[in-house]
């Protein structure tokens, strides 16, 4: 973990060139402006925590970073050309854990992970069973996911993070329905991911208690446009 960036959060250090930069992003949902002119950049091994009250656009920002939503203005830019060492292909590899788990109830945990490995092109060579072991849910890998508890399903969803060498993790309230052990396992995985040069962007209301390290914070309240006075 690079501690320098924590002291001077607004300036990029020379050692850590911006890999991902967001330029004057403006997002609108159902005609309501959520935030505007949001800019930040992140380099290797950096993490960003998004703060803000309910409805301030945390999920929208994360989904925009994932490319699911189109921003009203601004852009998300990846500095891919310079990053030879991490072996980029043509586009960054993004892992997204959202409010909906993306886990199919009829399928077993293993089958779910196999499907995700297949659509993402499994490059790290880790088998789905190993991924499940990392989140300590390998014992229920043969059950249809619909029979698992909410916490177990969340663990299966989080096991996806180990399937591949992702460049960016987008975690939207990842600790939802996880127990303390689950949170510890997630923190372990996150630590490894950051050490390997990955980026994490997350929002979580519980993080104060479990303390996932972050280099930067963005409070979306600071980017909220005041409604025009009539």
């Amino acid at each position, binding site marked *: 973990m690079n501690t320098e960036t924590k002291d001077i959060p607004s300036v990029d250090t020379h050692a850590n060139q911006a890999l991902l930069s967001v330029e004057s992003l403006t997002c609108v949902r159902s005609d309501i402006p959520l935030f505007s002119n949001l800019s930040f950049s992140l380099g290797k091994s950096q993490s960003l925590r998004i703060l803000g009250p309910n409805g301030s656009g945390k999920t929208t920002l994360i*989904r925009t970073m*994932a*490319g*699911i*939503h*189109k921003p009203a203005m601004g852009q998300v830019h990846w500095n891919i050309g310079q990053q030879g060492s991490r072996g980029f292909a043509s*586009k960054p590899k*993004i892992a*997204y854990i*959202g*409010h*909906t*788990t*993306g*886990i*199919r*109830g*009829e*399928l077993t945990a293993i*089958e779910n992970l196999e*499907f*995700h490995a*297949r*659509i*993402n092109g499994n490059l790290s060579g880790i088998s789905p069973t190993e991924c499940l072991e990392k989140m300590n849910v390998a014992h229920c890998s043969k059950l*249809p996911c619909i029979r698992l508890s909410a916490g177990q399903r969340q663990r299966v969803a989080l096991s996806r993070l180990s399937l591949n060498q992702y460049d960016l993790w987008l975690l939207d309230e990842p600790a939802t329905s996880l127990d303390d052990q689950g949170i510890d396992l997630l923190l372990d995985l996150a630590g490894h991911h950051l050490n390997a040069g990955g980026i994490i962007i997350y929002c979580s209301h519980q993080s104060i208690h479990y303390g996932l390290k972050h280099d930067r914070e963005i409070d979306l309240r600071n980017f909220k446009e005041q409604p025009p006075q009539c």
Partner: protein
Amino acid sequence: MLIAIIKRDLRCVSHDLSGTIQPIGFFLIITSLFPLAVTPDPESLQDIAPGIIWISALLATLLALDTLFKEDFIDGTMDQMFIAASSLYVIALARIISHWLFSGLPLIVMSLVIAMMLHIPAHAIDALIVSLLLGTPTLSMVGSIGAALTVGLRYSGVLLTLITLPLYIPILIFGASCISADLVGLPWTGQAYLMGAMLVLSITLAPFATAAALRVNMS
């Protein structure tokens, strides 16, 4: 990606058959009710058989359309597939192919049994098979546009039917007339060619329209 999605759907079906059995059961029920309600007389049944088979096939396809994208949409799999592929076209195409494999194809097999029940003579079976082989994929293709447009709605059944049915009418007309023509010994290749043309047109254009409709619903 395409094969991965179809493989997953195959697995889902093997774990939980209820979704696949529903449209096929529906097809069997409607077609078997007609002889009971109208007439058991072979001559009259033969006259209305093409219509019965095609209407039932069309309604059974509609029934299966509702879940075409909805499950993936609700459980978040659509987001994951979109991030992995960043092309909704492939996702749409894969889902349409599995829709046909698990509703259209079993329906064609079932229609052989139904044909016996409705006293369709053996010489008209080829027209029946060809018309369904050309027609049911078109139904899946065209229907996917409606399914994608209504994916965000909780109860989309009626709206989906309203959007899709007008587009189904030409397929219904030519499909039924294919079999009717063969029953009375007239050539039916003209209808078959037209249905082939409609299939090619829908394969070319429908996945694009479906992908665009999904995109609207996602953002």
